[in-house]
């Protein structure tokens, strides 16, 4: 294998001068991406950018075992040997680079645009006797975001699912150049609107890293309370939706309501059900002191009791278990090679969790266990959520009980020029990765957002292989991925 030197090693949210990021020639760059992942690293981001000068290709590899994040670059060639055949984690990133820069990764197995559904070209097709195609979307039957799904089926059995997204593309990354702007924080909050706290925290930590500002212990704790409330609300909602999809109405009804209870606790603290305006660069806009904190602690206790009563039915009902178990399995080896993150990874036995691998405050001092299952099926993805809700409830309560007093917010000030930072946050779906790069004027020269869904949509496609097409809604809910988080 390669003998190329490694990249710059930084901590989560730490800034580094661009001059300290090694620039390799492409063959060495390619070798280092493959080598870094082979050593057990995870490709967090791989992206092209340009800011007045020549086009640059930058890779970000997380080494969970050491908690270090490796960053290195290369000039972006107009044509290059694709990394994907030797490192499948790169497959979506290389498609994205080809789409954005017109470059050609030679030997990429499926070089289709990532965010141009109308210019997608031919779909992958399977031919043979009784093989047929089913096309769904972009407008779906439920109240959800748009995307197009193309199934190649033999009878009921799905041979292949191609997922075509991009309908939701709002151009957030391109709009960030020259920022931060007045609207930047609010675009981050709505990058994937159900992950408002996750993206706002990742963005705020990136700004704080580049500005070199210290955030108070109070603000760190409040942000974690906000993040865990977001996780609780979404996980509970997903458990209800999964119950609904197998026709188990008691849990569907109770979880729909209990999810609302978590959102109402978020409203109690910040005035908005999904946490808009709560997290700010430099800290938080609202605290959880006094009666607000007591209200959240008590509310969480009641929520947990209600969930155990109404949600716990899932794990005892044979009709539910018959639909959950063995449906939509993703093998651990596939989860690793695709670079799945979050709940989907942990349900396949891949212990990937920013809170444990790349912890920042308060996760560094107050650790949180990682919930893992091995079976990789719908049941595992549901049960990981169940375990995580219990953990998050206890964690948020503990944070509020030990809430340090201090300022909620400090002023970040100007960003360091010609620098780069990587900010990782474990949001409810999985890791959110923000890479911020500043130019000589201290403004953003490039900003890369990687929502967990960008990694995980391929996992859903894989989960459907060999499954009945009628199980698609159930498999889809078990991942519950973001369309706009992918399309940004």
């Amino acid at each position: 294998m390669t003998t190329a030197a490694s990249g710059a090693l930084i901590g989560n949210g730490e800034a580094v001068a661009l001059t300290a990021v090694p620039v390799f020639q492409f063959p060495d760059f390619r070798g280092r991406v493959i080598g870094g992942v082979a050593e057990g690293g995870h490709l967090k981001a791989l992206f092209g950018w340009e800011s007045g000068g020549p086009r640059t290709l930058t890779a970000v590899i997380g080494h969970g075992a050491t908690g270090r994040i490796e960053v290195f670059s290369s000039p972006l060639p107009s044509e290059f040997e694709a990394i994907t055949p030797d490192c499948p984690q790169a497959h979506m990133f290389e498609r994205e680079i080809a789409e954005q820069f017109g470059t050609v990764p030679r030997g990429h197995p499926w070089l289709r645009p990532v965010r141009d559904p109308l210019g997608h070209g031919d779909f992958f097709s399977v031919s043979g006797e009784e093989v047929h195609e089913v096309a769904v979307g972009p407008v779906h039957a439920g109240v959800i975001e748009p995307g197009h799904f193309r199934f190649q089926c033999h009878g009921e059995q799905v041979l292949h699912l191609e997922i075509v997204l991009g309908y939701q593309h709002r151009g957030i990354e391109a709009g960030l150049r020259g920022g931060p702007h007045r609207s930047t924080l609010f675009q981050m909050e709505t990058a994937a609107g159900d992950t408002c706290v996750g993206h706002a925290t990742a963005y705020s930590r990136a700004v704080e890293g580049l500005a070199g500002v210290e955030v108070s212990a109070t603000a760190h704790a409040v942000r974690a309370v906000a993040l865990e409330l977001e996780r609780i609300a979404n996980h509970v909602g997903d458990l209800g939706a999964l119950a609904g999809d197998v026709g188990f109405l008691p849990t569907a009804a109770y979880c729909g309501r209990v999810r609302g209870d978590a959102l109402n606790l978020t409203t109690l603290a910040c005035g908005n059900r999904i946490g808009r305006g709560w997290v700010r660069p430099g800290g938080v806009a609202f605290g959880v002191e006094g009666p607000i904190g007591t209200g959240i602690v008590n509310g969480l206790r009641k929520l947990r009791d209600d969930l155990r009563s109404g949600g716990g039915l899932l794990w005892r009902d044979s009709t539910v278990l018959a639909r959950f178990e063995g449906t939509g399995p993703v093998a651990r080896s596939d989860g690793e090679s695709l670079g799945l993150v979050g709940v989907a990874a942990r349900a396949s036995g891949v212990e990937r969790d920013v809170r444990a691998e790349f912890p920042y405050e308060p996760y560094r001092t107050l650790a949180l266990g990682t919930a893992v299952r091995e079976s990789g099926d719908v049941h595992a993805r549901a049960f990981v959520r169940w375990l995580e809700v219990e953990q998050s409830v206890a964690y948020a309560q503990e944070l509020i009980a030990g809430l340090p007093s201090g300022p909620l917010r400090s002023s970040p000030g100007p960003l360091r020029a010609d620098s780069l930072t990587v900010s990782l946050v474990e949001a409810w779906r999985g890791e959110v990765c923000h890479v911020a790069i500043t130019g000589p004027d201290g403004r953003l020269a490039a900003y890369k957002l990687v929502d967990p869904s960008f990694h995980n949509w391929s996992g859903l496609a894989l989960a459907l292989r060999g499954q009945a097409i009628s199980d698609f809604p159930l498999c889809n809910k078990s991942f519950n991925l973001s369309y706009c988080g992918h399309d940004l």
Partner: protein
Amino acid sequence: MIKIVRARLHQGHQTTTYPSQVPRLPERFRGKLELSPEKCPDGCAECVDACPTGAISGAGRADLKLDLGRCIFCTECVEACPVKAIAYTSEFRMSARTREALVVRDREAVLAEALDRKIRGLFGRSLKLRQVSAGGCNGCEVEVNALSNVVFDLGRFGIQFVASPRHADGLLITGPVTRNMKLALEKTYAAVPAPKLVIAAGACAIAGGPFIGMSSVHDGARSTVPVDLFIPGCPPHPLTLLDGLLRLLGRVEGRTGLSSHQDRGDPNQA
């Protein structure tokens, strides 16, 4: 089975009192904004400069206005104002039939009027909607979904989200209408049989939200289809959505709640 029954007893009755009673929302809830232009120091434009979506204009006493359609309820103006001339209230009711009615100048209420009698006769007791997310971030979508849970229980008013535009009486649109969703939105609108209604829910669908002016979006539903009801928020609270829908159908009127059309109305409302 006995466990399911026990869980049912544990969960109890959860449906909101609205519209027969107006529920109290938490103190920090960021609902409709109120302006006190009389407090504005001459020439001050702190709020205008702070607003990320250009929702405020005319600051400095003369003609202070806030457009609830552009507003993303983010607190920037409230924090920037040196004299507390802009304040949040816990008022969740703020939908309107016209774009102009969303522009507030003081402490007046913003409450949508009902459809005319003939259309109400068609949809007043049974309204089926198809939802289209056209660049929505899943913030509005999850709150629209919440309308169907046991707390808000939209079905008790005869309002329902259906799977096909062919089964629908109208569209509820979220998102700023991205370039890539415009065609799908046009086709979905065309597929709804006339007469049809369009509801724009959330700041993005009304005016583009935090993405206003960006080249890959069309700044809201009006770019593509005519809109009959605007429901502000980022995202709108489910009660804001519910209130807007009920007012459109003439099921709720005035500030205190129930409609004078009760005689035509729903027995469940009593």
